[in-house]
């Protein structure tokens, strides 16, 4: 599927705008909380949102593919970050802090994905129930 050059350019522009907004929100969080807390917060929220959109697409597919790409690739993937997390881990003053940073981001990040999968499944099942019992037009 070779997209028209203008469509490709538009996609790039939208991803850039998403990147601007996502990184700005992350920077805003860095100003509100300590650096470790801010990165943990945006990473967990971003994992939940991306997980929901990915599993929603798999189960129901209500959100159009290109809108999803632009939002997830542009905004969510720029909101969350690995480099700052890695730097924080590398510079952790004591081993306990290192364990807390890694376990916090990994543990809560994966948990957020699983929680969003569960939410997407429930939404699918809620939608499927009335359809299975016949349309009530």
């Amino acid at each position, binding site marked *: 599927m070779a997209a028209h050059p203008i469509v490709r350019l538009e996609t*790039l522009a939208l*991803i*850039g*705008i*998403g*990147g*601007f*907004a*996502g*990184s*700005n929100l*992350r*920077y*805003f969080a*860095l100003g509100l909380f300590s650096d470790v807390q801010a990165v943990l917060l945006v*990473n967990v929220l*971003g*994992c939940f*949102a*991306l*997980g929901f959109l*990915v599993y929603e697409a798999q189960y129901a597919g209500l959100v159009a593919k290109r809108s999803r790409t632009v939002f*997830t*690739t*542009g905004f*969510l*993937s*720029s*909101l*969350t*970050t*690995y*480099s*700052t*997390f*890695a*730097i924080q*881990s*590398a510079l952790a003053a004591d081993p306990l802090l290192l364990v807390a940073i*890694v376990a916090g*981001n*990994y543990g809560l*990040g*994966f948990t*957020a*994905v*699983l929680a969003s*999968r569960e939410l997407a499944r429930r939404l699918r099942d809620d939608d499927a129930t009335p359809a299975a019992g016949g349309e009530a037009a």
Partner: protein
Amino acid sequence: MIGSAVPGFVTFDPEPAHIVGTGGAIGAVLRHWVYLQFSSDRFPWPTLAVNVLGSFVFGLAMFAGAGESAIQLVGIGICGAFTTFSSFSVETVQLYERGDRLLAVVNAGGNLALSLLAIGLAWGLVSVGSL
């Protein structure tokens, strides 16, 4: 400093949020390009690549003693947006749930180990370079 030798450069003082945002837009578009080039169904190579490379460049900027604006542009903006935690988490969970449990563990450990190694390498390069 160089800045004071260039007329007009001193007055150029953009908002930190604009610096971060501009870097974020660049990082997101670069990451998108990497995903278009190196996507794989077997293993999430693009995410591993952006995370390790982004950590390395952030490390270089930091150990080289970059100023506040440079860290905002390159570190928080470009590298922050270029690397991603959300795709990494979702891909790891997907590897695990499709039965590739070992690959999921390798992916989780590999991203961390290689990113830390890359930061160590950046530190080493800056230390050697500044002797």
